[in-house]
């Protein structure tokens, strides 16, 4: 181990902080290319219309304009592809309409791009766009999913009743039979409100083309540079990989929304080739609201069948999942692969049936947002459990304990495809109960009552499936790509190390956590380790960062490559120290011959590999560099318990979170500071969904919440400080025992908050609370109940 502990479990301060604290971060908008032009997209201001005519003549002659393009100019350019294919229950493929780069004949949501103006300056491009004359024939907008599936106006002619797919998992007849004979059935109607991810850095894309090498470069604020290269190169622009480089430098947050391939990326790349000049596009925030994929937006009816003593017997649900106007990269997977499969939660419910109907509407595409399907499933389940406990008069903690999958039941096969490898739900529950001082709750409640406030406590015990892998399972459930990760470890002659990883950091601190891994495995100081990511010309391949997969999948690939490095190093050390390879032991960065005092440092071995004077050249190549691809055997299953305590002023409906406790099992922790930071951030977004955030479209498909004035982002004074703890149980199938932590906050927090509000208001007869639980919504519920 190097000086000071910088290995696994050490609270190392982040290596990447220096550049961000001093203004030296390099975000995409900070990049400018010589002779660059600027793109401005003219977007639809209406939700649904036929395009009769687009007259660009005045724009074309405006000052500084280099080009104006509409769909007709882009012959041979493909549509934005979808990365996931599902089927109807009868086996028919889902309806998958073309998603053109620029609208073709029809606009389908406010923000749908109709034309792009490219000019010498941003200002000129924007001014010229205002000169484009568009003749639109308005069509009725399809906004509400319930109306959409009744037919009438169609978003896409080929999608009858606006249905993309009607998919199911589970044996409906078996489940119905149990419901028919059950002592008790608890039902609930849930709306998982539509959210707008809102990374603070807006999306940026710069296309560049080098005529000499005939090579394209796209600089883009993405979470998955290789995936963008694959999708855009192969499906949209037909550029082979070796002629296309995608660079994702520092990226200012993503939360899922920067995973997908977007039309603007293809547009600037194509235009750069066409014009022979770089083309830069920077989203304005109001553009982000109508062009970044949104999240959630599920409408669900769910029921839980129980015995009278509170044992869960079966669960069934029907969910309408909004796809928006077009299918985004992972859109169809969210409600199915990531939602239906999670409905067992931490419980032994033996039978589950889930029916998902995906619906096209005249709204922005919906795709993964932090948690992606798993918050929706957990919200349904934890609200159901909470309600069932109230209906049966069973304590909230007791009903959960009674149905927990016990620690000795792992590996545990759920009725919805997943096999959980490990977990200890009692441990995180106990930790949360202690952290939240639940024993003192009644006293706090009476005290609050004296001040005219209603106090409530809400629970959520959750599990999540993360890692977005293995490839075989993903493939069986519709993925059109593999979901492994790759790493390349290059040991330099003097023993410093560069790791090229296919994971991408946009706030997760990989440059520190991955360096800690290397430090632990081969004993070099973290300052001698560089983590390179985000450039397809540097990194061999990668599937990117989402679904809390970087450490579990990307980190495991690094470990695999490091194992190969150690193997080779042992051979080199054995040769030099004239010992048998089997006698070489490697510990704390030193190779020793067992039972002797002979040893060699890691750096000496590295040098020998590059200066192979005394070297087994007959059996070993010089150099010390290894690659690995890692495709996990299973998802990983982080779990935990979140407890929220609220105080409500019944006269105003204002909810204050007075305590928030999170006890999570993220598996083995590499860096506790980073883990806690991930929990804090996720919990804030989970609270955001519960109390503040909600994307609203009016009946005409106009986005009402299209700015930060209208869409309520959680701010510092909306949120409490959190009590956070971790209780680690090992993942059994990856070399590090890690599970993941990026999304536990959004999965665990939201139901805890709403259950706390319902608890506080239960004495008034309130049994339900829609999200976001704004003061007006809460106040109304109080009035209606009394």
């Amino acid at each position: 181990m190097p000086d000071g502990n910088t290995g696994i479990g050490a609270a190392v301060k982040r290596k990447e902080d220096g550049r961000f604290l001093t203004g030296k971060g390099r975000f995409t908008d900070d990049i400018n290319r010589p002779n660059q032009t600027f793109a401005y997209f003219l977007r639809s201001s209406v939700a649904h219309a036929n395009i009769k005519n687009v007259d660009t003549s005045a724009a074309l002659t405006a000052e500084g304009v280099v080009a104006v393009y509409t769909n007709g100019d882009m012959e041979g350019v493909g549509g934005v592809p979808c990365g996931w294919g599902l089927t109807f229950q009868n086996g028919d493929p889902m309806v998958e309409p073309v998603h053109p780069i620029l609208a073709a004949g029809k606009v389908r949501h406010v923000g749908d791009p109709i034309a792009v103006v490219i000019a010498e300056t941003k200002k000129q491009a924007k001014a010229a766009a205002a000169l484009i004359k568009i003749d639109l024939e308005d069509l009725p907008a399809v906004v509400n999913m319930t109306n959409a599936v009744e037919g009438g106006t169609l978003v896409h002619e080929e999608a009858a009743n606006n249905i993309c797919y009607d998919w199911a998992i589970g044996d409906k007849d078996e489940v119905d039979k149990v419901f028919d004979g059950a002592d008790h059935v608890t039902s609930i109607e849930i709306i998982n409100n539509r959210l707008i991810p809102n990374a603070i850095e807006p999306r940026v894309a710069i296309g560049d083309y080098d005529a000499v090498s005939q090579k394209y470069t796209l600089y883009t604020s993405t979470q998955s540079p290789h995936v963008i290269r694959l999708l855009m190169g192969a499906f949209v622009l037909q550029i082979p990989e070796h002629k296309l480089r995608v660079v994702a430098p520092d990226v200012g947050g993503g939360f899922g929304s920067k995973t997908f391939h977007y039309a603007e990326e293809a547009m600037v790349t194509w235009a750069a080739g066409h014009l022979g000049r770089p083309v830069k596009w920077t989203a304005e925030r109001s553009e982000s609201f109508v062009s970044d994929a949104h999240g959630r937006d599920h409408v669900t009816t769910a029921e839980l069948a129980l015995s009278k003593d509170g044992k869960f017997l079966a669960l069934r649900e029907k969910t309408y999942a909004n796809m928006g106007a077009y299918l985004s990269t992972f859109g169809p997977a969210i409600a199915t692969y990531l939602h239906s499969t999670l409905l067992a939660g931490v419980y032994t419910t033996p039978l589950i049936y889930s029916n998902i109907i995906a619906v096209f509407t005249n709204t922005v595409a919906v795709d993964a947002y932090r948690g992606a399907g798993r918050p929706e499933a957990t919200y349904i389940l934890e609200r159901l459990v909470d309600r069932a406990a109230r209906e049966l008069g069973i304590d909230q903690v007791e009903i959960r304990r009674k149905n927990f999958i016990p620690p000795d039941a792992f590996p545990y096969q759920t009725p919805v495809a997943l096999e959980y490898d490990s977990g200890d739900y009692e441990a995180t529950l106990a930790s949360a109960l202690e952290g939240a001082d639940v024993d003192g709750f009644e006293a706090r409640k009476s005290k609050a009552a004296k001040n005219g406030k209603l106090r409530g406590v809400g629970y959520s015990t959750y599990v999540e499936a993360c890692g977005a892998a293995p490839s075989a399972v993903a493939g069986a459930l519709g993925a059109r790509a593999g979901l492994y990760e790759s790493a390349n470890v290059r040991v330099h002659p003097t023993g410093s190390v560069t790791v090229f990883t296919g994971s991408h950091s946009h706030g997760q601190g990989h440059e520190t956590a991955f360096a800690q891994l290397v430090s632990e495995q081969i004993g070099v100081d973290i300052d001698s380790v560089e983590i390179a990511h985000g450039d397809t010309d540097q990194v061999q391949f990668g599937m990117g960062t989402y679904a809390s997969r970087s450490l579990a999948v990307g980190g495991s690939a690094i470990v695999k490559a490091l194992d190969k490095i150690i193997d080779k190093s042992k051979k080199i050390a054995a040769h030099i120290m004239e010992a048998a390879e089997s006698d070489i032991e490697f510990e704390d960065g030193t190779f020793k011959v067992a039972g002797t005092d002979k040893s060699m440092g890691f750096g000496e071995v590295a040098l020998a590999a590059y200066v192979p004077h005394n070297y087994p050249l007959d059996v070993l190549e010089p150099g010390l560099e290894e690659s690995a691809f890692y495709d996990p055997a299973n998802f990983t299953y982080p779990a935990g318990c979140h407890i929220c305590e609220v105080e409500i002023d019944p006269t105003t409906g204002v909810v204050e979170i007075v305590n928030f406790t999170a006890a999570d099992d993220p598996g083995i922790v590499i860096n506790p500071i980073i883990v806690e930071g991930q929990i804090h951030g996720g919990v804030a977004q989970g609270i955001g969904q519960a109390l503040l955030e909600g994307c609203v479209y009016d009946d005409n498909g106009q986005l009402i919440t299209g700015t930060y004035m209208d869409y309520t982002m959680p701010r510092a004074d909306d949120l409490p400080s959190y009590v956070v703890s971790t209780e680690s149980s090992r993942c059994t199938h990856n070399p590090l025992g890690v599970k993941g932590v990026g999304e536990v906050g959004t999965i665990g927090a939201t139901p805890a908050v709403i259950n706390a509000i319902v608890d506080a208001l239960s004495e008034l007869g309130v049994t339900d609370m829609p999200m976001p639980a704004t003061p007006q919504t809460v106040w109304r519920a109080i009035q209606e109940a009394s």
Partner: protein
Amino acid sequence: MATVSLTVNGKVMSAEASADTLLVNFIRENLGMTGTHVGCDTSQCGACVVMVNGDSVKSCTMLAVQAEGTEVTTVEGLASNGDLHPMQQAFHDNHALQCGYCTPGMLISSIDLVTKNPNATEAEIRHGLEGNLCRCTGYHNIVKAVQAGAAEMKG
């Protein structure tokens, strides 16, 4: 076009700007200092906050020409001789940044806040930073960092 001259991080600088150029764009594009960020178009995210004559200002709410003759401090000007400002150090020590996009504005706002209210309580800090959005950290560690930075700045 007008020539705008101002002192940025102690250095006198000038550049041409049109009458409608926002200070933030002037700093980023005309002066080429990209530490200050843009996160919105309605003056609500605080990514663009800089110090103008000792007060924190959202530089997207001010025209470059209005900054003529002022003293501006951006995130690039906080560290001196390679030493981080106590607030920068506190952000590092308390893991108060993740993606780092909000950080420049958050730092300037925090410094202004605790300069004017050295004994700010947690509630005052939260209220004082409500003009700065951070989507990554959940604010927990930012609040801790501001408390630590304030203590350090008092000396």
